């Protein structure tokens, strides 16, 4: 198949997504294979050494291939005045599909990870209820559970793209800029089940969720949301929730800013009004240009991100590439992702693996023919509510740059003629 047969659908080399399927995919292979075959024309394939002697046997808990396991979360340096505080970011540009392995799920801790003995951990429900209750971990394991795939995103994710103080993150990677988003299958008890057992007083308008970490981190959740799809999660991708994710249990508020999914959950108190915790007043609030500040901006915005090619990668030769990335919305599922290779002048629809990934990551892909010129790669998501991801400038025009949190504008990766990819504000 020749290049002419690939249908160009938008400027600067974007190819119809149908070429990712069937015949089209073979077409992509040709461009790459041509040079490879020419280089190794005399090659003979032989049986490799590992096929000639038995390897180690089964083990109790598996690890990664030593060839595949180089990538890590990116954690900041420990700070003695902020013991246990800080974050680690998922290596998005090295991951595929939509599920984040448990050891690579992003973290944000306010006072480190508590070492909780589940047999001594308690979950209390009190406040405006008929009967305050206390549950043990053992008790909770006996409740009917649901398993759902949900993303979690810190509301500070992508904050570098606000460009506060003139910083424009030229060395940024998908991980360093956007790595505070991850996605897992969470298994737990619908919170409404437990609240119903305590008996919700009709005056209760909010719940306050508190963790058992040293910061006793607290957040308020509106009652209607608490009774909707919120769960007390006990399992993450099939195994008990990892300590860094809240072992033995965390609140999981689907689609909403990560901080509200309180880890190490130990108390739910029903109240008339929000408790106005420090992390819903001082932090995680967005100051507008008029100097009023939005609080309780809970669902995360409609968002997408090209993870490959992305910042600090290099394209080594001209030819066909599979642009791919992730998209998500706190208000539903991603129905459409468009990709541009010319800085947003023209757009083409990417192939979405799943159009019904509700409050979960969706993977998108589109073929792209790089002919050695400069390009600006962008992606734009539309969700099931019709929300369209704004440009960076559009978002800033709407909400200003004093907000610090909830950035969900379009990411621009520039590719120069040497094939070097870097973050730009376009």
């Amino acid at each position, binding site marked *: 198949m020749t290049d002419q047969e690939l249908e160009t659908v938008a400027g600067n080399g974007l190819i119809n997504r149908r070429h990712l399927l069937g015949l089209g995919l073979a077409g992509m292979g040709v461009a790459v294979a041509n040079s490879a075959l020419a280089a190794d024309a005399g090659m003979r394939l032989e049986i490799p050494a590992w096929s000639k002697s038995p390897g180690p046997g089964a083990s109790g808990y598996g690890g990664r291939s030593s060839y595949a396991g180089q990538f890590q979360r990116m954690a900041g340096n420990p700070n003695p005045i902020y013991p246990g505080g800080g974050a680690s970011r998922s290596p998005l540009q090295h991951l595929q599909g939509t599920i984040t392995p448990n050891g690579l799920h992003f973290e944000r801790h306010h006072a480190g990870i508590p070492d909780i003995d589940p047999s001594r951990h308690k979950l209390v429900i009190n406040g405006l209820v008929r009967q*305050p209750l206390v*549950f043990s971990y053992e008790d909770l394991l006996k409740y*009917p559970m649901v398993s759902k795939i949900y993303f979690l995103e810190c509301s500070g994710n992508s904050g570098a793209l606000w460009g506060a103080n003139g910083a424009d993150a030229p060395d940024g990677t998908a991980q360093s800029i956007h790595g505070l988003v991850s996605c897992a299958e969470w298994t737990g008890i619908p919170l409404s089940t437990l609240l119903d057992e305590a008996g919700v007083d009709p005056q209760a308008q909010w719940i306050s969720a508190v963790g058992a970490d040293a910061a006793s981190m607290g957040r308020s959740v509106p009652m209607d949301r608490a009774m909707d799809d919120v769960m007390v999660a006990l399992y993450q991708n099939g195994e008990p929730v990892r300590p860094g994710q809240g072992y033995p249990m965390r609140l999981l508020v689907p689609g909403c800013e990560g901080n509200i999914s309180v880890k190490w959950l130990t108390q739910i108190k029903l109240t008339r009004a929000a408790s106005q915790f420090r992390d819903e007043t001082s932090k995680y609030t967005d100051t507008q240009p008029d100097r009023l500040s939005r609080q309780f901006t809970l669902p995360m915005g409609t968002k997408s991100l090209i993870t490959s090619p992305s910042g600090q990668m290099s394209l080594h030769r001209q030819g066909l590439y599979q642009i791919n990335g992730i998209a998500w919305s706190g208000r539903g599922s991603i129905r459409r992702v468009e990709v541009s290779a010319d800085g947003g002048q023209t757009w083409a629809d990417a192939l979405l693996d799943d159009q019904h990934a509700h409050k979960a990551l969706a993977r998108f892909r589109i073929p792209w023919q790089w002919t050695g010129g400069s390009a600006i790669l962008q992606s734009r998501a539309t969700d099931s509510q019709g929300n369209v991801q704004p440009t960076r400038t559009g978002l800033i025009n709407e909400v200003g740059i004093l907000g610090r949190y909830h950035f969900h504008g379009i990411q621009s990766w520039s590719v120069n003629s040497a094939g070097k990819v870097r973050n730009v504000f376009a």
Partner: protein
Amino acid sequence: MSSRNKLIGVIVAIALSHTSFFPLAQAQNVGLGTPISESQLADFDLIAGPDGNGLPVGSGTALQGKEVFEAQCAVCHALNGEGTSGNTVLVGGDMHSEGTPLRTVGSYWPYASTVFDFIRRAMPATAPKSLSDVEVYQVTAYVLYLNGIIDQYKVLNSETLAEIDMPNKDGFIDHSQAQ
């Protein structure tokens, strides 16, 4: 909760350990939570709301809090709350200043209750929950005093704390019901 519910829970637990299905009829009301009273939770429930609900007995002034602050807080927040590095500035700022406003307890926080609530649950960062309730009142008063919000003789207790008007009390919009 009745002892019948407890029994159902136990039966279910045994069933679960031998089979992988959950009997649906019993799933409607597992009822394994143990009743507890609010007085039993007095030391456990640290939530101090903006209406003063949950503030404990005790009181303190900034005059008393100075000593606590200098001993327990200044190492990270500096002697007058001006901060050392990172997120540790506790004083100053003006929401209407040019450029990016410095957002602190004084310039940004809408409720004084949050100061008490946060210090009691999370500070000092190396030994959270090591202060007595009285010390928390004292040092809360001191942080408010450093911000010029109260004078050093003002007695903070469960009633007076919730009545304090913070400079930015009208500065927030509840966005929780936005679509």
